[in-house]
């Protein structure tokens, strides 16, 4: 059995990235994710890697752009206000079909907001974050173990589909400590014939660009990119289903709120309420089919979020509004309690009693 070590969520991301073959990290200090940079600053020089504290989040994401274009695994991490600054770079990465791993350990917003945990960047992450038609693969860990395993998975998916994979975590999971196994399979190596490695006078020059002045050509590229996105939607959806077999109420939650919700579901089951939980692990692609299927048999949904209700729109879309969806939330850095979620479950079940 794999040996477990006690780690902070942020450190687990950093170590898992190294295990996944990432040797280039660029970042800029911002709470509550700075442990990732600190860990990389310590480790990278010891293993022949590069840690560079950039002059800004904008510079950091563009350094990522350069390393990725050179064909190497690369990452950056930040928190909400910093991710907004990276938005331009995220769009360029997508427009040039470059793989990268970007971590957002979310804090309350908008603006400078606060430094306590939040899930208010759901729209920004699942809709791409920058300008233009594109998606990122968005992974939502709910434990320190998943901070590690989804980081490894994220690098693989990024290379496989030439996309940015984003770890959408929150300050709670970033800061909390749990036992984690870092046993990782050797990273799969993807051929990158498009990479800028120098022609070595042996091939025609490679060009990495997101500029296509002919509208016909740009349209074609957008359509091809979305065909690739459809393959991702077909093959890469991940979610956890908990006590859904006979559920009449379906709680939907991801990340830290999924853990809170799981406690509430267990407590409600003890009271005889038939309730289950669907926890999206990929927020894009969203587990639409699982929710559509659930909508055929549950009476209602609860969307538990640390935002003013963002994921709830995806639930309504996935279920074509067949069943009512109620928002259960706290915002601004506040976290819903199991009692709050339990009370919402009881209220949803109340009509039958």
């Amino acid at each position, binding site marked *: 059995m794999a040996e477990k070590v006690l780690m902070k969520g942020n450190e687990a991301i950093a170590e898992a990235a190294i295990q996944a073959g990432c040797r*280039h990290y*660029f970042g800029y200090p911002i709470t509550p994710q700075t442990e990732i940079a600190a860990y990389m600053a310590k480790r990278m020089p010891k293993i022949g890697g*590069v840690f*560079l504290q*950039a*002059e*800004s989040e*904008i*510079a*950091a994401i*563009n*350094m*990522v*752009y*350069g*390393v*990725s*274009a*050179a*064909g*190497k695994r*690369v990452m950056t991490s930040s928190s909400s206000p910093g991710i907004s600054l990276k938005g*331009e*770079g995220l769009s*360029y990465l997508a427009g*040039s079909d470059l793989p990268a791993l970007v971590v957002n350990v979310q804090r309350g917003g908008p603006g400078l907001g606060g430094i306590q945990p939040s899930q208010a960047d759901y729209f920004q992450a699942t809709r791409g974050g920058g300008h233009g038609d594109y998606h990122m693969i968005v992974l939502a860990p709910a434990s320190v173990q998943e901070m590690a395993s989804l980081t490894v998975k994220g690098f693989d998916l990024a290379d496989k589909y030439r996309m940015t994979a984003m770890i959408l975590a929150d300050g709670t999971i970033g800061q909390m400590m749990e036992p984690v196994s870092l046993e990782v399979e050797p990273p799969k190596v993807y051929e990158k014939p498009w990479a*800028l*490695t*120098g*022609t*070595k*006078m*042996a091939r025609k*020059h*490679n*060009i*990495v*660009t*997101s*500029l296509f002045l002919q509208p016909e050509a740009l349209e074609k590229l957008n359509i091809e990119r979305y065909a690739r996105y459809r393959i991702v939607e077909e093959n890469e959806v991940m979610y956890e289903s908990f006590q859904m077999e006979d559920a009449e109420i379906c709680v939907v939650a991801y990340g830290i709120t999924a853990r809170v919700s799981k406690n509430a579901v267990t407590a409600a089951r003890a009271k005889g309420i038939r309730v289950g939980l669907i926890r999206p692990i990929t927020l894009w692609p969203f587990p639409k089919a699982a929710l559509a299927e659930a909508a055929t048999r549950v009476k209602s949904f609860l969307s538990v979020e640390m935002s003013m209700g963002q994921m709830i729109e995806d639930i309504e879309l996935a279920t074509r509004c067949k069943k009512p969806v109620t928002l259960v939330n706290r915002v601004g850095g506040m976290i819903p309690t199991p009692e709050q979620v339990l009370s919402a479950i009881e209220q949803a079940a109340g009509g039958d009693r």
Partner: protein
Amino acid sequence: MIVAKRPNSLTATPTHYCPGCTHGIIHRLVAEAIDTLGVEGRTIGVAPVGCSVLAYNYFAFDMIEAAHGRAPAVATGLKRAEPGNIIFSYQGDGDLASIGMAETVHAAARNENITIIFVNNAIYGMTGGQMAPTSLPGQVTQTSPYGRDVTQCGYPIRVCEMLSQLEGPEYLTRVAVNSVKNVNTAKKAIEKAFRNQVEGKGFSLVEVLSGCPTNWGMTPQAALQWIDDAMIPYYPLGVYKDRSAKEA
């Protein structure tokens, strides 16, 4: 006998530059330097946003197109990924000295072992002639129709002078391409800026005073003269920093 031919580092693609524009000369000088050093197979160029955005079609080595102003950061990534490769950015004044000033200053401060070719023509060319951070006091542009008013817009930025205050950079020089003599000096400076990188010496930036007849509203001849009469007095030519010369 062949007396002149296209450098290996240039493709046969015709450029889109306006008549009288000096980008073509500067492209050629860069290509000749890469050819001379024999590093075409391991050179990667970073194109900016601006008139030279399509430079990636004209250079025969690997090329990447960066977001506006971000070329030094992209170049940093490429260099850190493969330090043995020769990485340069080719940027205009709006790209380098306005929106990308932070990236420029910090790449210089880190003495990042890259080369920057900074084309200063005192105007935004691609977007049709707006005021640049290097537009001269009183210069009429689309966004300074009554002439650059220094009480409102401040004075133009002298990039070489400013960067020369930093400990970091290896080589900073300003040249022009408006006469045979100046082109010959520019050729030597550009070659040195690349040689420095090959020898691992660090950040080298060549500022090239360049003409824009279209947006200055001049004939090509008048534009070359304007570089002498108006630009060079504000932007004196010369070497602003050369660490290895000092040590020698």
